[in-house]
């Protein structure tokens, strides 16, 4: 964590605003201190019977003026300082979000969404409170304390004041001693909230599995556990807090003790007058609240530090997928792809997910990938999209190393249908026009027609304006997949990638989509992953992956001749279907050969 504390940075950035707010608040506090002075002149005047009725008017007016002044300054000072806290909150959330947008898939695989949310809610809230309560009360306390102390020392007795202040360094010491304790406990509390958030988050995401397998009881138990440990860590923090508070109160009490005992001795010795003694104690009583507040503020600051650290940890996570030095500033891609000795291992993985892959896909041709579950098909396209960083010099696009191609250019040039069809909870239209470029409604409709989902959408009451639920779950599986296809097809990009993207549609729809795709694909480089040979048999190249290696390659025809995995797949997929003729005689349906 190299970055400076967030709060410090924010403070420095807005130092003038803070100064102004502080001044406004100080003025109001000072004004408010005039009230006792005015009162004194009133009571003194009454006592001496020196006051006139006309003076009373004036005095009343003064009260109102001072009151009004204190009110205005306090209001504006408060608004000013609190505004800073809101700005801090807003800016932090915004920078968290924009930072998260830069972080790679790998980061998200090591994080729980619930935890990340806790950063954006709780930690940011604590940061806001540092300013709202911490800073505000600190200013208030500092002003009141220094004025009172100054009055005590200058008008009453200097040494007595010193003596009274003697226990106060003890306060600093205690604050110092409790610092790390409160910080650790706060951290635990903040983490516990993260865990709790994650638990609920997971519960809601997995609700259908939970219900199907009647897991509710189990989940409640888990939640209860988390909930309990949350209470536990909170209690620890509270205990530390209370101890700190009561100790500091004890120390403040000691100051009183000194002031009373030594003060009275001084009076007895006639060093100070009785009146001074009373006044001294009045000032001291003015100090109670601010000193107690300082204790709270110190506390808050420690919690803030923990939150600060947590947030900084996020913000200082460097994105690993970004435009590196020496990128070639190209803005368009033609679509020649070539993989040279591509091997790749996931950070978490024990074995390489891809080994020594060599493929060239010239512009405008198609590559089909088949292979067993977990053989590395999605991995390969993920690398092409740079969701992960491929090793240098292993993937080339238009003869540029993919790592030298600007990320933006790369991703703008690829229309991609991912294997899981994540949709957003916006309208269908917005989902299809997800590509940031502007699209006309007509284009959206066209894409929907191409993906053969136009009719489905038109049957909905709100048509293209239908708002989807989270993840698009209010659509059927096949509808979701086709919206996802439409989302890709609307992009006029030179490369198109389908990752098992016709798995949830019926064969009629599949044929339809494939037919409309045909025209699209002529001018585009395409990569299609599928488990169904029917989907991919006419690709220009087909590769068969097994455990991350290309074990077979060729065209449909040549692969069938090889009598390998592909051939086996093909026979299995075709012979499994029996087709009785009308007169009851069973015949085997073979693929139509050309």
């Amino acid at each position, binding site marked *: 964590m190299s970055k400076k504390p967030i709060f410090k940075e924010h403070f420095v950035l807005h130092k003038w605003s803070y100064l102004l707010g502080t001044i406004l608040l100080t003025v109001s506090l000072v004004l408010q201190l005039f009230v006792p002075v005015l009162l004194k002149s009133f009571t003194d005047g009454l006592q001496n019977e020196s006051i006139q009725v006309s003076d009373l008017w004036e005095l009343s007016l003064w009260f109102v003026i001072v009151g009004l002044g204190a009110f205005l300054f306090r209001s504006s000072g408060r608004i000013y300082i609190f505004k800073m806290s809101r700005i801090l909150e807003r800016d932090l959330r915004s920078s968290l979000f924009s930072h998260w947008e830069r972080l790679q898939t790998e980061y998200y695989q090591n994080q729980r969404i619930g935890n990340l949310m806790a950063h954006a809610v709780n930690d940011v809230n604590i940061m806001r409170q540092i300013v709202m309560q911490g800073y505000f009360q600190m200013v208030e306390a500092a002003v009141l304390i220094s004025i009172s102390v100054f009055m005590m020392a200058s008008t009453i007795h200097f040494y007595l004041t010193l003596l009274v202040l003697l226990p106060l360094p003890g306060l600093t010491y205690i604050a110092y001693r409790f610092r790390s304790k409160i910080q650790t406990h706060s951290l635990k509390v903040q983490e516990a909230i993260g865990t709790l958030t994650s638990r*609920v988050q997971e519960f809601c995401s997995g609700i259908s599995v939970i219900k199907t397998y009647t897991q509710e009881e189990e989940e409640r138990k888990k939640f209860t556990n988390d909930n309990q440990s949350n209470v536990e860590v909170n209690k620890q923090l509270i205990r530390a807090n209370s101890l700190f508070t009561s100790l500091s109160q004890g120390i403040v009490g000691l100051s009183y003790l000194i002031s009373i005992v030594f003060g009275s001795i001084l009076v007895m010795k006639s060093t100070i007058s009785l009146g001074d003694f009373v006044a001294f104690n009045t000032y001291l009583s003015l100090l109670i609240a601010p000193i107690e507040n300082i204790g709270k503020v110190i506390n808050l600051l420690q919690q803030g530090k923990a939150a600060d650290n947590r947030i900084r940890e996020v913000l200082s996570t460097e994105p690993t997928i970004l435009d590196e030095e020496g990128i070639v500033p190209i803005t368009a891609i033609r679509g020649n792809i070539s993989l040279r000795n591509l091997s790749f291992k996931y950070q978490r993985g024990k074995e390489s997910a891809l080994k020594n892959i060599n493929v060239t896909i010239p512009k405008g041709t198609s590559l089909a990938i088949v292979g067993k579950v977990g053989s590395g098909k999605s991995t390969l396209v993920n690398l092409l999209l740079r969701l992960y960083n491929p090793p240098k010099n292993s993937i080339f696009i238009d003869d540029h190393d993919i790592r030298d191609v600007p990320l933006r250019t790369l991703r703008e040039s690829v229309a991609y249908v991912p294997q899981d069809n994540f949709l957003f909870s916006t309208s269908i239209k917005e989902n299809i026009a997800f590509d940031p470029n502007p699209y006309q409604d007509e284009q959206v409709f066209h894409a929907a027609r191409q993906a053969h989902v136009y009719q489905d959408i038109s049957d909905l009451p709100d048509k293209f304006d239908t708002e989807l639920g989270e993840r698009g779950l209010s659509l059927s599986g096949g509808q979701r997949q086709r919206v996802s296809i439409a989302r890709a097809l609307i992009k006029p990009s030179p490369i198109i990638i389908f990752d098992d993207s016709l798995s949830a549609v019926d064969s009629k729809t599949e044929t339809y989509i494939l037919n409309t795709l*045909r025209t699209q694909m002529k001018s585009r480089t395409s990569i299609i992953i599928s488990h169904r040979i029917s989907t991919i048999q006419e690709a220009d190249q087909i590769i068969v992956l097994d455990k991350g290696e290309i074990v077979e390659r060729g065209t449909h025809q040549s692969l069938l001749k090889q009598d390998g995995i592909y051939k086996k797949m093909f026979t299995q997929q075709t012979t499994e279907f029996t087709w009785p003729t009308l007169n009851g005689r069973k015949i085997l349906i073979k693929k139509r050969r050309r």
Partner: protein
Amino acid sequence: MFAKPYRKLLFFSLLLTGFIVIASLAQPFIIKVAIDSYIKMNDYQGMMYLGIIYFILIMVSSICTYFQNNTLQFTGQYVIYDFRQAVFKHFSVMQMDFFRKNPIGRLVTRITHDVEALNQLYSQVIVNLVKEVLILIGIIALMLYMSVKLTLICFLVIPIIAIVTFYFKRVLRDTQRKLRSILSSLLSYLAENLSGMSVIQLFARERKQLDRFNELNEEHYRAGMRQTVINSIFNPSIGLFGNISLALLVWYGGRSVVDETITFGTVYAFTHYVRQFFEPLRGLADRFNQIQAALASAERIFETLETKPTIVNPVQPKELPEKVKGDIVFNHVWFAYKNEEWVLKDVHFRINQGETVGIVGATGAGKSSIIQLINRFYDNQKGIISLDGINIKNVLLNDLRRHIGIIQQDAFIFSGTVFDNIRLNHNAVSNEEIIKAAKAVNIDSFFRMLPQGYNTMLGEEGTVLSAGQKQLLSFLRAMIADNDVLILDEATANIDTESEQAVQAALREMSKNRTTIIIAHRLSTIQQADKIIVLDKGRIVEMGNHQQLLKNQMVYYDLCQNQNKGKTLKI
């Protein structure tokens, strides 16, 4: 309602509070004693004794503070705990629909954030409130006792304060509500975007998503500022009224003293009381905002707790036998997710004990919807669904679901080990059985190769599985659960041919003597079924076995033909 169990604790802390208040009030008293009895007598020794007594007072008060703080805030934590338990429990009995309609972010905030705001109500507001109100009452009583007239004069401002408070209360409440609801949309947005981050990145749409986030963020900021401004006017205004009250006192009281209608002593005392009166009032004003915030949260929480689940256990449940036969009957079932937009129309079929039934139809025909009715994720509006002759609405939800295993279209992986994920709550299942099942569907070797084998953590923060691996895992879940009725919804869509053969073999084994429903777009997976139901736009258009349906030469025939030709695509 939620504080009830903790009345004792609250009472205890109130007691302690009382003691602390007395201790802090004792200080002026001790000074008075010091002045009157010792200083004037020059009694050093007496002074020392007083010092010691005061010291003890400080110590005791300090200790009381410790316990008071602890009890109070612990109580707050217990209340939070109870609330969280209640809300979570409530969530866990809500029907599917609830989770589809409420974004996850919103539900999460309900449990974490909203409840936290309530904490303040208990841990800080209540006790202070009592303290402050007590002080106020005491002062008012004293003032009235000394001079009714002067009291009334000083309290001329009270009606204005009441009006102002009343006004601010309304405004504040509104802003609090707004603030909460914006925050919850902000978080829902955040949660969704974090889940779908790779899609955003792949479409290079970071900018637009950020813009939208900032829009919401800005809205939240503005609502927050509004609240801040209102509060910043309201809070100090109490001080202003205090000063005005003082002015009235000075003006009227001063004149009365000059007129000699009121004694100087009374007016002098009043100058103290008025100030003392407005001190706790200011505290109350501070509290006020917290109360409003807590109320806004409480409102939302209670609202949540009060939304009754629509799919509930029957009052007089019938019990299903330990092992059901698996006769499923749909008797003229109509179903719509919303209003009258019928997704299933007059669906009528019967599945006999032990039969294997396939459901086919175009996407969006309503296949998954049928499944969701069988285990009551949703309730049908018309018609009756029965299992073994018992209307499924007459049995306990868990009793019903326990008998029905469903493998869904998308597999969800929990964070937990491979074993945990497959076993779920079937604790009786041994590791060996799981491994055996995994071998049967050809995924054992993969699990073994993971860093910690079957004990590798999956899910968030854990190892990532490929789509097909997830599907196999969810198939394993069903194998292990060994339910009496087995339902597969597109369970092999992302699985390669070889693995699928293994799955089919396992499935054949499982479907022996077990009612099995299979939904598949690949007709090959269901052609062996005893019965195939063909669905089109929510209606059953055909029913029968493979041969019969082909003979019909209708929809199913078309589907089959389509699957076997027309693949003349040049990719």
